[in-house]
C-alpha cells in the first residue's frame, strides 16, 4: 500500500499536467471551447481516491500540515471548477484554474515525496471536533479565494486590454467581462463567508484545550488570517455599499489571494 501511495503521489501531478496541456490546447487553438470533457472529472476522481486511500492508511484526514492541505486545495480547486464548467459549458478559463491546481499538487507531491505513507505527528488537537469545524471552512475559503484570484486576474487582463485597445492573443480567447466579473465576485464572497466562519471558530478552538496552544505558528496564522479577513471585508463592503467597480474588487481578489497564499506558506514554516 505504501508503494502504491508513493506512485500515486508522483503520478498525480503528471495527470494534472496532461490536463493542463489539454486545456492549453483548447485556449490557444480555440477548439472544443464549449464541449464536455470527461478527463477533468476522471482526474478529480483519481485524486479523491488517492486522498481517501492515504487517509485510510494513515488513520486521519490528510489536512494536518501545509503539505497535505495543498493537495486538498488542488482537489477542491479542480472539483469546484469541474462544477463550473459543467454548469456553464465553457472551457476557456480552464487552463488558468488547472494551472493553479497543478501548482498546488506539484508542490504538495514534492514536499510529501518519500513520506506519503508515513503518518505525520499529530496532536489530539488536530483531530478534535473544533479543529474540523475550523479546517473545513478554512479549506473552502482557500479554494474560493484561489478561484476569485484566478478570475479576478482574467477580468483585469481583459478589462485592461479593452481599455488600452489591445487586440492581442487574449482578446479572442477570454470570456466576456460580464462573466468573469461575477465569477470573481461570487468566489470572493464565498471565500469571505467561509473565512469568517473559520476565524469565528478559532476562540472556541483555543478555549477547548486538548493541545491547542499559542505557538508561533498558531499566532502567525491568526495574524495572517486577520489581515486577510480585513482586506476581503473591505472589498465586500466596498462592493455592497460603495458600489465599487468590478475592476477594483478583482484587483483585491488577486492581491488578496497572493497575500493569503504567501502567509499560508510562511506560517507553515514557523515553529509549532
Amino acid at each position, binding site marked *: 500500500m505504501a508503494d502504491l501511495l508513493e506512485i500515486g503521489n508522483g503520478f498525480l501531478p503528471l495527470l494534472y499536467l496532461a490536463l493542463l496541456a489539454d486545456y492549453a490546447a483548447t485556449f490557444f487553438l480555440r477548439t472544443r471551447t464549449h464541449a464536455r470533457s470527461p478527463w477533468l472529472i476522471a482526474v478529480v476522481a483519481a485524486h479523491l481516491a488517492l486522498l481517501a486511500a492515504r487517509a485510510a492508511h494513515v488513520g486521519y484526514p490528510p489536512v494536518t500540515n501545509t503539505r497535505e492541505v495543498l493537495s486538498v486545495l488542488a482537489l477542491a480547486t479542480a472539483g469546484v471548477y469541474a462544477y463550473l464548467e459543467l454548469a456553464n459549458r465553457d472551457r476557456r478559463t480552464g487552463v488558468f484554474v488547472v494551472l493553479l491546481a497543478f501548482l498546488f499538487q506539484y508542490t504538495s507531491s514534492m514536499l510529501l515525496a518519500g513520506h506519503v505513507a508515513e503518518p505525520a505527528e499529530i496532536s489530539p488537537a488536530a483531530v478534535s471536533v473544533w479543529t474540523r469545524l475550523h479546517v473545513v471552512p478554512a479549506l473552502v475559503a482557500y479554494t474560493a479565494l484561489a478561484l476569485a484570484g484566478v478570475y479576478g486576474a482574467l477580468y483585469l487582463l481583459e478589462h485592461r486590454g479593452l481599455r488600452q485597445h489591445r487586440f492581442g492573443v487574449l482578446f479572442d480567447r477570454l470570456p466576456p467581462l*460580464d462573466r468573469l466579473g461575477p465569477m470573481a465576485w461570487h468566489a470572493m464572497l464565498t471565500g469571505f463567508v467561509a473565512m469568517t466562519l473559520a476565524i469565528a471558530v478559532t476562540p472556541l478552538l483555543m478555549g477547548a484545550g486538548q493541545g491547542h496552544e499559542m505557538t508561533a505558528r498558531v499566532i502567525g496564522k491568526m495574524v495572517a488570517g486577520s489581515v486577510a479577513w480585513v482586506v476581503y471585508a473591505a472589498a465586500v463592503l466596498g462592493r455592497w455599499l460603495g458600489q465599487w467597480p468590478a475592476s477594483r474588487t478583482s484587483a483585491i481578489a488577486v492581491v488578496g489571494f497572493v497575500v493569503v497564499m504567501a502567509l499560508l506558506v510562511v506560517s507553515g514554516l514557523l515553529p509549532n
Partner: protein
Amino acid sequence: MPELSVIGTSHKTAPVEVRERLALAPGQVAAVLAAMHAEKTFDEALVLSTCNRTEMYVVPRTGADPLACLLDHAARAKGAPPAADAGIFYRHDDAEAVDHLFRVAASLDSQIVGEHEILGQVKDAYRLAIEARTAGFLLNKLLHAAFRVGKRVRTETDLGRGSAGVPHAAVELARHIFSDLAGKTVLLVGAGQTAEAAARALLGCGADRLIVANRTLQRAEHLAADLARGPLGVCEIEDDGQAATCPEMVAQAGAEANAPQALVHRPKAEAIALDGLAEAVARADLVVSSTGSDEPVLTWAALAGPLARRDTPVLMIDIAVPRDVDERLGELASVYLYNIDDLDRLVERNLSRRRQEVPKAEAIVADEVEAFGRWLASRQVAPTIRLLQEHLAAIRQAQIERYGKRFCDADRGELEAFTRSMMGQVLHQPLSLLKDVAADASPGERLATVDLVRRLFGLDALDDDEP
C-alpha cells in the same frame, strides 16, 4: 462538349453599376430556371445571384451558348436587356468550374474573404434549382460537395473569424463586454450611415432597446421607427458575431417572411432630442455616435458625473470625425471608448489574420477538387465497364475454385463454359445500357446511369473514390 460549365460576372470583373443590372432577385431566378426547364436548354442548371456576382452553372445538353441564354432569360425576367460588355463575363469548364464553385462556397472569391453569407446564398440557389427541377444528378453531387467545402473551411480554418467591417467590429467589441446583448440598450446619436449599420448590427445580435438622439426630434423619430421596423442585421450566433455585409441581401432577408436568419424580435425604440443625451447615456449600455458636429456632443461636463456613478459598463463607439465623444470620458472606470481608428485597426487585424488563413483554405479546396475529379473520372463508362467485367470475372473464378473440386477433370471444362456463359448473360444488359448512354445520353443521364450500375454491383467499394 464540357460536362460542366459556369459563366458569370462578379466584383472582380464588373463594377457595381453593371452587376446591379444583371442581379436577379430570388423570384427572378426562379422564373429564369423555370423557362430553362421548359425549353430544355440544358440538362441541368443553377443560377447564383448575389450583390457581388451573377453566375450560372450548367450541364450542357446541346451546343447552346450559356452566356447568350443567361442574358436572354435575365432580360426577360427583369423586363429590359442588361446591356453588358461580353468582356466582363468569365467562363470555366469541367475541373475549373468545380474549382470555381468550391472557391465561391469557401468565400475565397468573395469581396471580403471569409464572409459568412455566401454559403447560405449558394444553398438558396440550390434550393431554387431543386424547386425548378433543373438540378439533376451532377449538380446534386457538386453542390453537396461545395457545402462540404464551405463547412470544412469554416471549421478547419480561421478564415471567417473576426469582424470584417466597422459595424460588425462594434458587435465584436460588445461581445467582449457583454455575454448576451438581450436586454441591452443601444443609443444612436446622429444619423451617419456607418453608425446606423452598427446600430442595426447590434440590434440584430440581440439588443432589444433603442434610443435615437438627433438634433431634430422629427428626424430621430423617423430613424427610430425605421430601425425598429427592420430589417435588422443578420447575426450568426458565434463568438465573433458576424453580420450581413450586403445591404441588398439584408433587405431581402427582412422582406421574406420565412428568411432563415432574420431574427424574430423587434426592438423597443424611442426618439429624443440632443438635450436629453445625458439621461439617455445613463440608461444605455451601447452608445454609437456619428454626428456632423465640429465639437463633442457627449461632453465631460454633462456626462462625467452620471458615468462615474455607473456600476455597469458602457461601450461607446465614436465613429464621427471630428469626434463626438470627449476622450476624457474614456478614463472613467465604467467606460470603454473606441473611435473610428480603433475600429479600423481591429478590422484590419482581423482581415490580416484571414489573409493568413487563405493558403489553408485553398489547400482544402484543392483537396476537394481533386477528390471530386477522381469521383467524376470513376463515373465514366469505359472504366466502369472494365471494372464491372473484372469484378464479375473475379466472382466467377472464386466460385469455380470453391466448387470445382466436386467435378472431375472432364466436367471442369463444362463448368468453366457454363459459368462463362451465365456471366455473359448477366452482364449483357448492363453493358448494353452503359454503351448506349456513352453514345447517346447527356452527361447528366450518363453519370446517373453509371452511378446506378456502380451501386447495383457494389463497384464503389472496390474503387473507393466516392466524394
